[in-house]
């Protein structure tokens, strides 16, 4: 298990735990289909600790680095 941000760019992983992601963000991610068990991949990280874009099920989402670090994933 590792943080989403530790994943190799472009490789796929499965979301294991969203428990430490802030409540509102977790709900939004859940709305977008990113819940425990969803397959995600990291696409881009913007500089200076800027947002990171992830891909899940064909859709692209930008979230903050801090939140991405709180997402625990498992490499596939």
């Amino acid at each position, binding site marked *: 298990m590792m943080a989403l941000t530790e994943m190799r760019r472009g490789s796929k992983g499965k979301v294991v735990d969203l428990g430490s992601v802030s409540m*509102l963000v977790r709900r*939004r991610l859940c709305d977008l289909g990113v819940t425990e068990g969803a397959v995600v991949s990291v696409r*881009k990280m913007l500089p200076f600790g800027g*947002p990171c*874009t992830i891909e899940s*099920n*064909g*859709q*692209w989402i*930008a979230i903050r680095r801090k939140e991405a670090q709180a997402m625990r994933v498992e490499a596939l």
Partner: protein
Amino acid sequence: MISVALVGNPNTGKTSLFNALTRSYEYVGNWAGVTVEKKVGVLLDKRGELVDLPGVYSLSPLSKDEAVTTEYMLQSAPDVVLNVVDASQIERNLHLTLQLAEYGHPLVIALNMTDVAEGRGLKIDPARLSALLGATVVPVIARTEKGCVELLQEIVQPGAHPTPAKVDYGPLLEAAIAKLEARIPEQPRAGRWLALQFLEGNETVAEWLKTLFPAEWLERFYRTTESDIAAQTNCRGLPQYIRERRAERIKDILEACCQRTRTESSSLSEKLDALATHRWLGIPIFLLFMYLTFKLTFDWFGTPISDRLDALLSGPVSTGLARLLQQLGAADFIQAVVLNGIVAGVGGVLVFVPQIFMLFLIISFIEDSGYMARIATVMDKLMEGAGLNGKTFIPMIIGFGCNVPGIMAARTIEQPRERLLTILLTPLMSCSARLSVYSLFVGVFFQSHKAIIVFSLYVLGVVVALALAKLFSRTLARNEASMFVVELPPYRIPQWKTLARSTWEKGKGFVRKAGTFIFGGSVLIWLLSYTGIRGWNVPIDQSFMRAIGSGVAPILEPLGFGNWQAGAALITGFLAKEVVVSTMGIIYATSSEASLQQTLGLFFTPLQAYSFMVFILLYVPCLATVGVIRKETNSAKWTWFSVGYALIVAYLLALLIYRVGLLLGFH
């Protein structure tokens, strides 16, 4: 007439479909959160009324625009629910569909973007989907209006709708649902839907139920149910449990009616994103894009056409009108009001129509292409530093067109504090009305650097907004976590028809304003400059206008434009910023732009002109904007604050720029 509610996830094409089904021209775009309030239209066959609602992922609202939809579903009882489903994201979309099925009213599904889904190798069988959901399913492509005729027929077919299917939530929860449902009195919405929404944590529904049951009872009921479920499963709470049951059901449905021919490959969107959200180039590319916008607006396209329009207005149109009035034997007074009032005032503003339409065309392009969400992403870090988030930049970009829709767009921002700050700061975005003032001044004083001077004003507006956001978020608004989650929709090439339509819809307001507000304002201003204490037709130096302008002139003296004409123009500019141009046209008693420009050259130096433009950029939101701030903040205090801080900041900055400019040897 039946009433039909249009509900669906954000950015699934609800408004496109609304426009196709009602022949309306409502605002469409390619990002989540274009529609922020409900809109009503009459169906093409005149047999029903269609209500377009803001996009939602579920019926439990997180933001203000989402609450509009939940409240509508709770207050009204539409005869038919029309659910737009994005076929390419069907799995996520069906979560909402299942909630709408529970609502208990006939459900019609418009399966949109089937072309996009098929492009990604996903084929959906509409007949099977229909049978599994207990809803009519019609495949459509809303952008090209394919399938809309069939959809219309299905909506208005009376009594032909199947009964929506139910999800089985397991014996424990079903028992709880039944218990609550039995206590809810008969009413237009299904009790099961209310019970489920309540158990899912929908606060709007919970508030509504509190009018029926004691709050403590409801809370106890919720907690008992939650602990019962928690004892049996490993779910963290009821919302998660309910969501998982739905997800299972959706999986079954999709297995039965979907065919995946291939998994997707890297797309064009990805290649474009490599550039648009590039690590280092993201912000520079955005700035370059904005700079090119001003190049197009001023140097390459807008101004040349504007000049021709001006020549037409000040030449043939003015002389023609003058001759006509003379032939008709119109009184001197009438001649003066038409030529010196209306032609100078309204004509002075109308000549900027080409520039403004050019700007609107580019804003429409940003909205429709999908670039909007990318701008929000690359700006997030910068905005976070100022105590906001990247999404708050979307209202600001819309504000470049007009501040009023910009402030409305702030409804999509989830956190109340960030939303308030966005509402307060969006008026600092330089809108198209201010563009007409800049156009006039750069044409006189900065002939060879038009685009860069105007660009600097736009950037100044953004920089001031960010600096104030930082200040306000530290002092005024209490601390609250910031959040940023934004969907990046696939890019698409905007259709010319959509671009032309949304440019016209935005620009129309400007032209209409010229015909009504500015027309009336011009007559009034002319009257003030034509009359004085001594009566009618006084020299302008003895007019009421001069008296008014002289009142504020001394205050403006330190900023470099202490003449009464500037003072009068600024006061009237509160009505609408274009009125500044009208007022100057009337005061300097010219009917053509060319001679107004010559006259201006006598009253201002370039540095004073720049200081004046900075003041115009910042000084107060216009009347319409103040109105919308009042409505959106629902607070007189914040409305006054928005006017007050803007005046102070405008004064200090114009002063600073003028004084430092003088020290540096500019004039």
